[in-house]
C-alpha cells in the first residue's frame, strides 16, 4: 500500500475528530440543557448515550425493525427513561441542595449501568452502518459513510434545538426558567414541568448520539462514564450552559484529540485534551463562550 500524504493524513484526523467531537458535543448539549434549568450537572448523561446505543442494537439487530423505526423507538424509550429518572429521583427531592441532586444523578448512572450489564451482559454490541460500508476516499483519506450520518444528525439536533428554544412556547418557557426560576414561576410557568422536559430532552439527545455512534465504535454497558466525562469537558470548555459553546467545544475537543493521537502520540491524547481544558479555564474561567459579566444570566 502506498504511503498516505500528509494532507491525506490531516484530512483523516480532522474527519475522525469531527465525528468523535460531534458525540462529545451532543453529550455537552445534554449537560447544558439540564444545567440551565436546574443547575444540576447530570452525571447520568453518558449512560443515556450508552442506553441509546444498546437499545438501538436491540431494536435494529435483535428485533430486525427497519432502521428509521428502530431509531425513533430508541429515542422514545430513552426519553422515557430520562423522564422517569426525573420523576422518581429528582422531583421527589423537595428543597434539596444542588449538590445532593448531583450525587443522586451519580447514583442513577451507576444504577443504569448495572441494569444494562444485567440485560445485555458485558460483551460489546454492534449494528451495521446506516448506509453501506464502503468508505469514501478523499486524497487518500477514507471517510466512513456513517461519519456523514453523524454529522447530519448532529446538525439536525442543533437546528431543531435552536428552533425549539427560539420559536416554541415550551422552549421560551425553559429559557425563562434558565434566566430566573422564581420570576418564571411568578409569570405562571410550571418550573416543575420544565425540569421534566429538560431531562427528557437531554435523554433524547443522548439516545441520538448513542444510536448513531454504535456502528462506528461499538457499544457496551460501561461506555457511558468516559463519554460523559468528555462531554462534560466539552461543556465546561465551551462555557457551562452555552448552547453554541457546547457544539464548538465538543468538536474542537474531538479534533484536538485526534490530531494529538495522529501527530504527537496516541498515549497522550486524553492528557492533552484535559490540559487544554485546564489552560482555557485558567485564562477564561467562564469557558470559551461563557460570558463573565453576564455569568448569572444563562443563555442557551
Amino acid at each position, binding site marked *: *500500500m502506498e*504511503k*498516505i500524504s*500528509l494532507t491525506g*493524513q490531516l484530512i*483523516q*484526523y480532522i474527519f*475522525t*475528530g469531527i*465525528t*468523535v467531537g460531534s*458525540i462529545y458535543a451532543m453529550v455537552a448539549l445534554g449537560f447544558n440543557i439540564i444545567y440551565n434549568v436546574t443547575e444540576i450537572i447530570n452525571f447520568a448523561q453518558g449512560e443515556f448515550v450508552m442506553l441509546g446505543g444498546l437499545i438501538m442494537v436491540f431494536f435494529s439487530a435483535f428485533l430486525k425493525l427497519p432502521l428509521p423505526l428502530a431509531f425513533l423507538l430508541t429515542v422514545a424509550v430513552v426519553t422515557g427513561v430520562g423522564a422517569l429518572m426525573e420523576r422518581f429521583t429528582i422531583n421527589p427531592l423537595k428543597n434539596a441542595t444542588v449538590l445532593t441532586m448531583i450525587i443522586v444523578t451519580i447514583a442513577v448512572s451507576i444504577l443504569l449501568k448495572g441494569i444494562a450489564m444485567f440485560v445485555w451482559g*458485558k*460483551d*460489546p*454490541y*454492534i449494528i*451495521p452502518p446506516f448506509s453501506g*460500508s464502503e*468508505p469514501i*476516499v478523499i486524497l487518500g*483519506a*477514507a471517510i*466512513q459513510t456513517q461519519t456523514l450520518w453523524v454529522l447530519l444528525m448532529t446538525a439536525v439536533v442543533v437546528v431543531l434545538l435552536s428552533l425549539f428554544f427560539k420559536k416554541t412556547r415550551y422552549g421560551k418557557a425553559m429559557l425563562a426558567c434558565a434566566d430566573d426560576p422564581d420570576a418564571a414561576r411568578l409569570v405562571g410557568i410550571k418550573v416543575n414541568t420544565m425540569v421534566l422536559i429538560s431531562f427528557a430532552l437531554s435523554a433524547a439527545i443522548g439516545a441520538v448520539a448513542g444510536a448513531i*455512534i454504535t456502528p*462506528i*465504535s*461499538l457499544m*457496551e454497558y*460501561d*461506555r457511558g462514564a*468516559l*463519554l460523559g466525562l468528555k462531554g462534560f469537558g466539552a461543556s465546561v470548555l465551551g462555557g457551562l450552559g452555552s448552547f453554541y459553546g457546547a457544539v464548538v467545544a465538543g468538536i474542537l475537543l474531538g479534533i484536538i*484529540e*485526534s*490530531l494529538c*493521537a*495522529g*501527530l504527537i*502520540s*496516541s*498515549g497522550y*491524547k*486524553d492528557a492533552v485534551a484535559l490540559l487544554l481544558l485546564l489552560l482555557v479555564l485558567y485564562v477564561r474561567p467562564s469557558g470559551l463562550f461563557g460570558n463573565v459579566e453576564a455569568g448569572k444570566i444563562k443563555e442557551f
Partner: protein
Amino acid sequence: MKSSAKLVQMILLLITALVLMSSCAEKREPYKVGAVFSVTGRASFLGEPEKKTAEMIAKEINDKGGIGGHPLELVLYDDESDETKCVLAVKRLIKKDKVPVIIGPSLSGNTLAVVKVCNDNEVPLISCASSIKIVAPVEDRKWIFKAAPSDSHSVERIFEYLLTKNTRKIAIMSVSTGYGASGREQLLRLAPEMGMEILADERYGPKDTDLTAQLTRIRGTGAQAIVNWSVGPTQVLAVKNWRDLAMTSIPFFQSHGFASRKNIELAGGAAEGVLCPLGRVNIPDLVPADHPQKMVIMDYNKAYQARFKEPLSAFGGHAWDAMKLAAEALGVVGPKPATIRDYLEKRQDFVGQGGIFNFSPTDHNGLTKEAFEMVVVKDGDWALAP
C-alpha cells in the same frame, strides 16, 4: 448340571470379590486437589470455563474409580477476580483444606499475588494465567508452574510467520491495560532479536471509541504489517477501522486474545483476512490428524460440548492441562507436595490442550512458540494461515 452349578458359584464368588474390592476402594482416603478460579467478577470469562473443565475432569476420574482407587476431591474456591480474595482462598486451601497441589488462579495479577504464599508454604501451584513473570525468574518460583503459554510465545510465532513472508517493517498497536502493556513489552523486546523493525508504536485506552487516528499514522509510516495487542471491544474496533480506512493491503495481526468466534461475529465482515496465533484447542477440526495433540483436543471438545452445550474456550484448556498434570502427579507419587513438585519439574512430553509441555528446572512453563498455530479469518471462520 454340575458344571453350570460350578459356573454360578464362580460368578457369585467374582461378584463378592468385586463388591469387597470396591468397598475397599471407597474406604481409601480421597486425594485432594485445590483450585482457585475467577468464576465471577470481571474475569468470569476465564474462570467459568476453567471451573467447568476442572469439575468435568474430576467427575471423569472418579467415574473411572479415582486415582489408583483414591477418589479425587476437588476443593474449588472463587476469588471473584479479586487479588485479596485470591490470597485468602489459597491460604485456606493450604492451611485448612491441606491440599498437596493447587491449580489456578485464572488471572496473572492474582497468580503473582499468591506466588509468595505457595513458595513459603512449599505447596506446588499450577497457574492458568499467562504472564511470563509467573514463572520467571525461576529461582524465586521454585513451587510455581504455569499451564498457559506466555505472551512471548505468541509474539515469537507472529514474528516467525512474518519472516517467512519476508516482512520486516511493522507497526504495533496496544491497549493501555496490563494485557496490552505486557504484549507491547514482548513485542519491543523480541523485535530487534528477530530482526524486525518497529516503525510505529501506537497505544490507546480500553474505552476508546475510534482508532482511525492511530491507524492513519501507521499508514503514513509505510509499515508492511500491523500487530495489535488488546482484548475486549478495542480489538474489534481496530479491525473495523482498519477495513473502514481501506488498509486491507497491510496485513493485520491480532494477539492470541482474539481467539473467540464472537470477535469475528462482532466485526461483521471486517475481520476477513485478519491473522492471529491460536492455541490448537480452539481449532480442533483444523489440527492435522497426525498431530500428537489431535486426540486429546478432540476428546476434550466432544466431552465439554456434550456436557455444557457451549463452545469451548482456550481458557478451559489451561484448566484441563493443570488438572490432568495434578491428577497424574498424585497418581504417580501420592499426595506429598514436595514429590509432586519434583515430579512436575521433570515431566516431559505431556500432551495437553495448550501444547506439548516439557518442564525442566529452568522452565516451569514447558511450552514454546509451537503451542500456537497461525490462523486467518476466512469466510467468517478460522482457517490455517497460508
